[in-house]
C-alpha cells in the first residue's frame, strides 16, 4: 500500500514527505492567508472608524465590516492555518502518509465553500449580527449555513489528523512516543473536536430558527453553548501556537524541551481544563450560579493557566540551554542578545511568546476573574485582550512559522528577505499597540462594537473622558502599523510562493538552516544542574507583573458602587 504513495525526501530535515499531505498543507495555508488579507483589511476599516478624528465608515458599514472582520480572521484564517499545521504535525513529522487525502480535500472544499457563503451573506448587508450572532438577533439563513459547512469541513480535517496518527503507529513510521510538537497539535485537535461539535449543536437549531422551523432559541442557552465553540476555538489557537513555539525553537536552535514529561503534562492540563474558560463570557449573565462561574472561569483552580506558565518557562528555557551549549554563556542574557533577531521566524516567535504572556495572558486571567469582569465586560478591554492573545500571540506565531514552511513545503526560496526581517516587528509592535490602547480605553469604560463614542445621535447625552479619545486615536495609529505589517506578510509570502526561486527535490534552501541537535540538552542526566538564569529572571518579571496587575484590578473593583 504505502509503496503507491508518492514521497520525496526533505533535503533539510531528512524527513519523508507525502506529496498528498504537502499539497493539502499548501492549499490550506494559501486559503488561510487570503482570508487573513481580507479580514485584516476589514480590521483596518474598523479601527479607522473607531479613530474619532477619522470616523471612516458610516454606521451600517461599520457593523458589517466588524462582523466580517471577526469571522474572517478569527474563524477562517486561524482554522485554515490550523488545518495546515495538523497535517504538517501528523504526516510530515511522523514520516507517514496522510490518512484519507480525499477526505482531507472534501473537508477543505467544505470549509472554502462555507467561508465564501458566509462572507457573501455578510456582504449582502442583512447579516450584520457580529460573528457571535447572539439570538434573538437574526441573520439570514446562509450566514449560519456557511459557518456550519465550515465547521463540518474542519471536523473532517481533525478526523484525518487522528487517522494519520493511527496509520503512522500501525505502519511504524516512528519509534516510541509522538514528538512534542505533534502532541501539541493533538491537544489542538482534541479541543477542536469539542469546539466544532458544540458549534454544530447550537448553530443547526439556530439555522432552523432563522428558516422559521423552530420558534424559539433561549438566549442564555445559546450563549452558553455558542461560547463552548467560540472560546474553545481560542484554546485551539493557544495549543497550536505553543506547539509552533516549540517547533520554531527546535528548528532555529535545535532546542529540546527541558522535560518531555512536564511539557506534555502542561498540554494535558490544556486538554482537560482549558475549555472550561468558555465561562469567561458568562460572568455577568443572569442566573448562572457563582459556583459554576468560579469553577469554570478558573479552569478548575487555574490548572490550565499552570500549563501555560510551564510552557512560558519551558520554551525560552529550552532556547537558553541550546544557546548556552553553543558557548553563549556570558552573563544572564548573552544567549538572548545574540539570538538571531534578524531571522523573522525567531523574532516573530519570541515576540509572540512575550506579548501572549505579558499582555494577553495576564489580562485574560484578570478579566476572567468572576467579580473583576464587572468592570470590563463588553468594554474595549475585551478586544484589547484578545488582540494580544490571538493576534500578537497566535497570528504572529503562525506568521513566524510560515517563513520556515515556505522553503520546506512550498519548495521556494523566500523572497524579499530584508522586508521579511522587519515584518514581525512592524506587525508585532502594531498589534501590541492596539491591544494596549484598546485595553486602556476599556478601562475608561468605552464600549466595544460601538460606532460612535461621542453619542452624537443619542437623545440623552453622555461623554467619555477625554483620555479615552486619546486612546482611540493612538489605537488608530497602531492599527495602521499593524495593517502595514500584515500587508508585508501577505506580499512576502504570496510573492515567494508564486515567484520565489523554485527548489528541486534535493536542493537545500539557503534558509532556514536547521542546526544540529544541541548536545548539552540531549542528556537529561544533567538536568539537576540545569542553568537557565536568564529565563528564570524573565519569568520572575512576568510573575511580579502578573501579581501586581491582578491586585490593582481588585483595587479598581473595590472603588465602584457596592453591589450584591
Amino acid at each position, binding site marked *: 500500500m504505502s509503496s503507491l504513495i508518492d514521497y520525496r525526501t526533505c533535503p533539510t530535515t531528512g524527513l519523508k514527505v507525502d506529496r498528498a499531505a504537502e499539497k493539502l498543507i499548501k492549499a490550506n495555508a494559501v486559503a488561510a492567508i487570503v482570508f487573513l488579507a481580507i479580514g485584516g483589511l476589514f480590521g483596518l476599516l474598523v479601527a479607522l472608524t473607531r479613530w474619532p478624528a477619522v470616523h471612516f465608515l458610516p454606521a451600517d458599514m461599520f457593523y458589517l465590516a466588524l462582523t466580517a472582520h471577526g469571522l474572517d480572521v478569527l474563524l477562517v484564517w486561524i482554522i485554515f492555518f490550523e488545518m495546515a499545521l495538523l497535517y504538517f504535525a501528523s504526516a510530515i513529522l511522523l514520516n507517514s502518509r496522510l490518512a484519507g487525502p480525499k477526505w482531507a480535500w472534501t473537508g477543505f472544499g467544505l470549509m472554502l465553500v462555507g467561508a465564501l457563503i458566509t462572507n457573501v451573506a455578510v456582504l449582502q448587508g442583512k447579516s450584520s449580527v457580529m460573528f457571535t450572532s447572539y439570538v434573538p438577533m437574526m441573520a439570514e439563513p446562509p450566514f449560519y449555513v456557511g459557518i456550519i459547512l465550515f465547521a463540518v469541513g474542519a471536523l473532517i480535517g481533525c478526523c484525518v489528523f487522528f487517522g494519520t496518527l493511527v496509520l503512522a503507529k500501525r505502519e511504524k513510521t516512528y519509534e516510541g*512516543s509522538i514528538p512534542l510538537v505533534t502532541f501539541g497539535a493533538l491537544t489542538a485537535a482534541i479541543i477542536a473536536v469539542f469546539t466544532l461539535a458544540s458549534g454544530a449543536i447550537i448553530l443547526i437549531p439556530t439555522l432552523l430558527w432563522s428558516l422559521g422551523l423552530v420558534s424559539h432559541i433561549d438566549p442564555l442557552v445559546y450563549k452558553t453553548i455558542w461560547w463552548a465553540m467560540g472560546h474553545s476555538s481560542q484554546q485551539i489557537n493557544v495549543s497550536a501556537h505553543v506547539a509552533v513555539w516549540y517547533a520554531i525553537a527546535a528548528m532555529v536552535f535545535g532546542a529540546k524541551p527541558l522535560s*518531555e514529561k512536564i511539557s506534555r503534562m502542561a498540554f494535558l492540563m490544556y486538554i482537560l481544563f482549558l475549555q472550561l474558560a468558555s465561562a469567561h463570557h458568562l460572568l455577568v449573565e443572569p442566573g448562572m450560579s457563582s459556583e459554576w462561574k468560579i469553577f469554570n472561569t478558573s479552569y478548575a483552580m*487555574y490548572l490550565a493557566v499552570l500549563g501555560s*506558565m510551564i510552557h512560558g518557562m519551558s520554551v525560552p528555557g529550552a532556547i537558553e540551554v541550546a544557546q548556552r551549549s553553543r558557548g553563549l554563556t556570558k552573563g544572564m542574557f548573552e544567549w538572548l542578545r545574540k539570538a538571531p533577531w534578524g531571522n523573522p521566524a525567531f523574532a516573530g516567535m519570541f515576540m509572540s511568546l512575550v506579548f501572549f504572556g505579558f499582555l494577553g495572558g495576564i489580562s485574560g486571567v484578570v478579566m476572567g476573574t468572576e467579580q473583576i469582569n464587572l468592570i470590563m*465586560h463588553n468594554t474595549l478591554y475585551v478586544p484589547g485582550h484578545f488582540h494580544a492573545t490571538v493576534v500578537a500571540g497566535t497570528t504572529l506565531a503562525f506568521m513566524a512559522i510560515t517563513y520556515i514552511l515556505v522553503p520546506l513545503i512550498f519548495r521556494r526560496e523566500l523572497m524579499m528577505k530584508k522586508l521579511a526581517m522587519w515584518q514581525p516587528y512592524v506587525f508585532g509592535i502594531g498589534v501590541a499597540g492596539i491591544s494596549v490602547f484598546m485595553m486602556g480605553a476599556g478601562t475608561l469604560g468605552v464600549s466595544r462594537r*460601538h460606532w460612535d463614542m461621542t453619542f452624537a445621535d443619542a437623545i440623552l447625552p453622555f461623554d467619555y473622558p477625554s483620555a479615552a479619545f486619546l486612546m482611540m486615536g493612538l489605537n488608530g495609529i497602531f492599527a495602521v502599523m499593524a495593517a502595514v505589517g500584515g500587508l508585508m506578510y501577505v506580499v512576502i509570502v504570496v510573492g515567494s510562493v508564486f515567484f520565489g526561486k523554485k527548489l528541486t527535490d534535493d536542493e537545500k534552501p539557503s534558509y532556514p538552516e536547521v542546526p544540529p541537535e544541541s548536545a548539552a540538552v540531549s542528556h537529561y542526566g544533567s538536568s539537576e544542574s540545569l542553568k537557565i538564569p536568564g529565563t528564570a529572571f524573565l519569568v520572575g518579571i512576568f510573575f511580579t507583573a502578573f501579581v501586581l496587575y491582578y491586585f490593582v484590578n481588585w483595587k479598581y473593583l473595590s472603588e465602584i458602587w457596592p*453591589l450584591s
Partner: protein
Amino acid sequence: MAMTPPSERIWWRQPIARIELIWIIIAFTWGLIMFFMMIYWHGAGAQNLSNEAYQIKPQVFAKHAQDMIDEYQVREESGFPVVHPPPGSDVYLIARLWQWWPILEFEKDQSYRLHLSSMDWQHGFSLQPVNINVQVHPGYDMVVTVKPDRAGEFGVVCNEFCGIGHHMMVGKIYVVE
C-alpha cells in the same frame, strides 16, 4: 528535539530540573490564591452579583416598570419619565431598541433592588463613568442590589451590539444626596 520523538523510550522517569519544579510550585500556589480570592470576595468584598434571576415575559416586566413609573414619577426629561422610587424598593429598568426606560433617580447610600430585562434583543447595561457592566437578556429578569456611593449624573451606555441604533442607546441615572 521537539520535532522528533523523545530520544528516551521511557521519558516519564526522567528527573525534573529543580528550577522547573520550583516554578511549578509557585505557579500552582498562585493559582490557588487566585481561586480562593474570588470566594473570599464573596464574603469580604462589597462588589458581587447575587445571581438572583427569574424567567419573565417581556410584557410582564414592562407592566412592573409601568406601575413603578405611574407611582413614583417626579418629572420628565427629553420625553423620558424620571422616577424617584423609595429606597429599598424594587426598581425596573427596561432595555429596548434603543433606549433605557425610564430615567432613574436614586438617593446616595441607599440600596435598591435593580431589575434589568430586555424587551427584544440582548443589550448591555454599562453604567458610566462608574464602569459597572452586566448583560441584559430578553426573557430573564436579573436583580442586582445597588448602593450608589456618590452623587451625580451617570450615563447608561448599551455595550452589547443591538443593531443599527446601538450607539444611540444611552440612558441616565441620577444619584441625589
